[in-house]
């Protein structure tokens, strides 16, 4: 809905030769997504079926949540390499605590607490000791992976009934289509994050930090709390993503989600968020994840294309967006 509003604004302003630059990247991603689906629909039978789109959401629910957290961090000009390991750690904590017989609510709370704590710790290192986000979150990445192995080297299956129920639960939409609960949950997270970023002081301070940290400081904004906060949020989102991933795979394993941080970063960049911070929208990151998912759907529908084209096309898309953004920012 917000997208259509944006488009009207664009059309009106384009007539006056001053398109709102900040929406351009997201619109580009949106057009790309629609275009890919259109081409897919024309080329492959059954591609244009709405259920394909709904399954796309289900299959990528965890990545959507990760990308949301990553968007907060990247908007401040930082980066979080630890999310993939954090996901693996979360699946393992969930699987192990369920194995120990903890109630589901307690399991969820423990997982969320652990993820948030890890994020907060990295945020504190980054803000109070001036350690570069890249290095601090690299340490977080190693730490989470290491903790995984301490919990278990082997995969632990999740047999809890509540978990299975949620994993397979879905809501039925008119026309016989269905949307998995986890996908609904991911969309709710997107909506909440979009609200926080656009309409709360915290959210606007996140943008201000990415625009210019010294300015934000001189304007008297709560820089420390916000900076630590975004890493805590990213940690929380990684834990949530981990829970979704545990639901998706019904297991906890230390080799889950290897390299998923790269997918999350790529999704955010393809979603039009500037890696230097200050510009971007959560809705863009959602679209970015969908574009990544569509590439995979494309390849699986085609059958003749090999899987590596996924990575290559993601790389090319990242390149296109990075260069385009560079051109846009240079002009201003």
């Amino acid at each position, binding site marked *: 809905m917000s997208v259509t509003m944006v488009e009207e604004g664009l059309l009106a302003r384009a007539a006056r030769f*001053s398109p*709102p*630059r*900040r929406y351009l990247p997201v619109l580009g991603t949106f057009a790309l997504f629609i275009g890919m689906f259109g081409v897919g629909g024309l080329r492959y039978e059954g591609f244009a079926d709405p259920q394909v789109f709904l399954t796309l959401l289900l299959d990528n629910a965890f990545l959507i949540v990760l990308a949301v957290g990553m968007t907060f961090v990247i908007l401040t000009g930082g980066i979080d390499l630890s999310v993939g390991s954090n996901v693996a750690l979360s699946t393992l904590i969930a699987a192990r605590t369920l194995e120990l017989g903890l109630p589901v609510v307690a399991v969820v709370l423990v997982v969320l607490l652990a993820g948030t704590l890890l994020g907060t710790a990295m945020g504190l290192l980054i803000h109070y000791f001036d350690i570069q986000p890249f290095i601090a979150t690299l340490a977080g990445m190693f730490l989470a992976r290491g903790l995984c192995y301490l919990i278990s080297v082997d995969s632990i299956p999740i047999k809890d009934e509540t978990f299975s129920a949620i994993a397979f639960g879905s809501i039925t939409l008119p026309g016989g289509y269905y949307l998995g609960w986890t996908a609904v949950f991911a969309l709710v997270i997107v909506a909440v994050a979009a*609200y926080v970023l656009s*309409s*709360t*002081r915290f959210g*606007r*301070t996140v*943008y*201000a930090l*990415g*625009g*210019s940290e*010294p*300015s*934000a*400081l*001189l*304007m*008297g*904004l709560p820089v420390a709390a916000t900076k630590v906060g975004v890493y805590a949020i990213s940690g929380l989102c990684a834990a949530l993503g981990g829970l979704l991933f545990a639901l998706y795979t019904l297991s906890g394993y230390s080799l889950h989600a290897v390299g998923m941080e790269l997918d999350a970063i790529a999704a955010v960049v393809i979603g039009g968020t500037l890696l230097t911070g*200050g*510009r971007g929208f959560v809705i863009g990151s959602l679209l970015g994840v969908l574009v990544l998912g569509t590439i995979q759907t494309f390849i699986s529908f085609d059958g003749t294309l090999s899987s590596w084209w996924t990575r290559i096309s993601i790389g090319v898309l990242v390149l296109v967006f990075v260069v385009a953004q560079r051109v846009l920012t240079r002009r*201003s």
Partner: protein
Amino acid sequence: MTQADVTPPRPVVEMLDVSITFGAVRALDDVSLRLLPGEVHALMGENGAGKSTLIKALTGVYTIDSGRVQVDGAETQFATPAAAQRAGISTVYQEVNLVPNLTVAENMLLGREPRRLGRIDRREMNRRAATSLRALGIEIDPGSELGSHPIAVQQLVAIARAVDTDARVLILDEPTSSLDADEVARLFEVMRRLRDQGTAIVFVSHFLDQVFEISDRMTILRNGRVVGERLVEGTTQLELVQLMIGRDLQVLDRLDHAVQEAADDVPAEKRLPVLSAVGLGRKGSLEATDLNLYAGEVVGIAGLLGSGRTELARLLFGADAPDTGELMVRGSSRRRLRSPRHAIDRKLAFCSEDRKAEGVFEELSVADNMLLGLQASRGWLRPIPTATRSTLVEEFLTALDIRPADPSLPMRSLSGGNQQKVLLARWLITQPDVLLLDEPTRGIDIGAKTQIQQLVADLAEKGMSVVFISAELEEVLRLSHRLVVLKDRRKIAERPNRGIDVNDVLEIITGEPGGLAEKERADA
């Protein structure tokens, strides 16, 4: 020194004997400042006089080492800019300190946005912003992105933000440097209205006419000390400039001008200039300027801070790209310099005024700092042979009397004066034809200063063409054969340096007759 005799109301802010030391440099030395409600108070001084440091000491950016700050008579020390803001002291810094990626309204109200049920009320925010902007006479859409507006508008938005916090003290650090005449008039209107409402306004500007138009009182700083506190009424521009620039009391021999006279024997038109600029200019930094430089001659550039003196040197060196004009090196076909590399290949050299940011490599050794210019010209594959290295380094350590004379020390362990000499050596080693020196003697001790002055004179005698820029007019006059005066980013005069003294130059700059000598006589 005549202390302005005012029986004031209680000051809003009083800073007493405030000192701040950075390393070995005393940036503020027992500085006192009083701000009264309902006045525009100008803070005057050249580069490095301590204006910015004083402002930052007041607003909690720096911690003061000694002295007291009182706000409304109560002793205070702000820990952060935010604390100062809460106490009603708002600052607009020289560089726009807003975030370009948010809207105008957000920039004005960030941190105190109107909220409804925790949600930012955008409509109310835009309405409020529009009201404050209209009060300043700015008609822009508060919902538009700040970065999409020209710097001048951004500056006005920054002022609108500061004004909007119900500030009792409003500090404007060079707010007019990017505004045109109309915008300045509008700003002054707002300043007057605020003053009449009882706000104390600190105004920092290098545009003298503006200072005299808007200010009531002023405090003049030089080298981290207060050299005067005056009422604007009854003070002339000339007096002010004399206080700002100061007079070098050390009597130095006027250097020999034999070279100049010899050069004057040949009519200038007959000689080929080493470097000549025709209509060289760049938007926002220097209007189109003509300048010819001849071998064996020192051209002095006089002008106040912001007159375009640094900008001229940077354009001549290709450090900034000009918008207009041509540069010809030794009468070569007309072309521009694309980069410093290009300029260096044509035997130009440039010592920046900003030693720390644009000259020194603190972690590298003295020898490396000295040889970097030559090495950059040779490229990385052709290192300077060890024997040549040590000969060159020894030669220049001795010739320029650099101390300590240990080439292996890291550059940061040297004093400012010695660092400056190393930078001079870096360029002399490349054997340039034209040497552009921007404030080569600023912030260094008197001994090193005289040595550098002597060196400049010697170099010119040996046939080098030198451009000498300095805020100290005595120094410029002492060294130059020819004098170029800049004001408001324009060349306003160029003449041979014969029979000119400081007062003459000041007259050219301020357009007012009279000099310190007369004034002193009158005081006595």
